[in-house]
């Protein structure tokens, strides 16, 4: 048996009558989302049906499972959880998603944005613009003009947008309006997101768009 930490949303803690933000569970190995939820519901029967369906055991659509800075919501429920969760070093987070989880995406983008000097973010109609001083260097786009895509648009070197799209059309796309001005879109609605790649794309765009004094303050090879 393993001792597993689980962080529950406030409303579920109320139903479970748990005051702390975390509960600990003894879970049989191998530790997976399924075995953790089995143990959780066994200890707190009032939570049955609130995280996953009684019969199908499918995750309720507006809930997410996060751990170790990864979204595990779409992983098979019987897949082993990361060793850090299985060892109790990190908790499994049950999170109430907002608008399909785009807030968590924005939070990740915010953290990358915060690495660059004199940046800010503005929100507009479900989208967000990341600015250096008053110049936008990246757009977070959520179903822009009904295209059904959640993605990040950044400026790249001339011709690189088409080359990136040709190299991986499932990942990169030509964004409306700014594509013709040398920008490329990176999809964020895929199962796995390479956040190092996202950071690299934002950094490159920052350097291309920022005033020279600020651009020189960050280093980027081959740009």
């Amino acid at each position: 048996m393993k001792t597993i930490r689980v962080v529950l949303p406030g409303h579920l803690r109320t139903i479970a009558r748990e005051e702390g933000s975390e509960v600990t569970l003894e879970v049989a190995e191998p530790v997976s989302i399924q075995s953790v939820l089995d143990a959780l519901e066994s200890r707190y029967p009032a939570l049955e049906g609130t995280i996953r369906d009684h019969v199908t055991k499918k995750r309720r659509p507006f809930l997410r499972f996060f751990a170790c800075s990864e979204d595990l919501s779409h992983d098979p429920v019987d897949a082993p959880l990361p060793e850090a969760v299985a060892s109790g070093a990190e908790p499994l987070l049950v999170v109430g998603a907002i608008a399909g989880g785009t807030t968590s995406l924005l939070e990740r983008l915010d953290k990358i944005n915060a690495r660059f000097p004199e940046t800010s973010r503005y929100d507009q109609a479900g989208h967000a613009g990341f600015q250096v001083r008053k110049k936008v260097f990246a757009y977070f786009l959520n179903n822009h003009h009904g295209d059904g895509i959640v993605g990040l648009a950044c400026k790249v070197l001339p011709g690189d947008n088409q080359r990136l799209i040709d190299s991986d059309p499932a990942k990169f796309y030509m964004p409306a309006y700014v594509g013709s001005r040398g920008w490329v879109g990176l999809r964020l609605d895929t199962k796995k997101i390479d956040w190092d790649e996202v950071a690299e794309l934002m950094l490159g765009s920052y350097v291309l768009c920022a005033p020279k004094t600020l651009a020189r303050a960050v280093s980027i090879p081959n740009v």
Partner: protein
Amino acid sequence: MSTVRVLVGTRKGVFVLTSDGKREKWDISEPAFAGWEIYHMKASPADPNRMYASQSSGWFGQVVQRSDDGGKSWTPVGNKFIYDGDAGTHQWYDGTPHPWEFKRVWHFEPSATDPDTVYAGVEDAALFKTTDGGANWTELSGLRKHGSGPRWQPGAGGMCLHTIVQDPTNPERIFIAISAAGTFRTDDGGATWKPINHGLVSAQMPDPRAEVGHCVHRIALHKSNPNRLFMQKHWDVMRTDNAGDSWTEVSGNLPTDFGFVIDIHSHEPETIYVVPIKSDSFHFPPDGQLRVYRSRTGGNEWEPLTKGLPQSNCYVNVLREAMAVDSLDECGVYFGTTGGQVYASADAGDSWNPIVHDLPPVLSVEVQTLP
């Protein structure tokens, strides 16, 4: 002196409004189940301290709460509503077959005699029953499987079984209403059911007089005459004098016969109340005037009741569960709005006062008259 307890279910929790029999000064509780939608909350007639609340949210689904001490404390009970056997399909909005899927409990109707027995009306439309205080729920599937189920389809608010009325003189007879299927009756305690929609005319339907498919918003029965029921249909106010075997329109001089609520004076079985709403595409009162209409003749002749209600710039709705009456000698009438107001009349509707102005949108109102 008697106590009146008004149980208000809202988009963001339950509020309990309490007053003495004068119904002038009200105590307003802190919200219970704050942040959750409470579609309905009702106490057992057999034990006023036994209450059931339907707590739900888009995130966490359905929770059923039970109180044994008049709402001072609550315990989650069973929330497993599993359709009996192969759930089958009903019609989707586009007319295609769609599998039955449980979404939420719209209405709890506790038994008149046993606090542990409760009926639950759910979306997608079905009737469930518990006999152990909510621990376990069993579908009375004779309703859904009587034959017309595959032709039922959702109304704009979903395909919900929202009204359950028990015949106070015959425990085997229950009436229920579904949007948008119509009204049904059992005479054998829920084993078998039949549609009782003869006389309903819904011009929007391909067959306006079809056996099922009518969007019935609410039905009400007076304990002194269980064969007479009143109905607020999508459009039309209707009446039956033969337990639903046939219905007659009694909209009469109403300014519009669209609406959601309908209720009956606790001591005058011919006195009924509705709140006319401009239309199905507006969902607010005509002319920005919030008016309750009262008929003292069982329908057809209606009078507007306006004293104390906003008569300009009012664009709220009054949802189907959001009207109730108390049983004091001078009948009290109560209703809640989507604007968060709860209005009370201590004189059978002649005058109104807001008990509270700024609650979340009101989904349901029930009243307990306590000795």
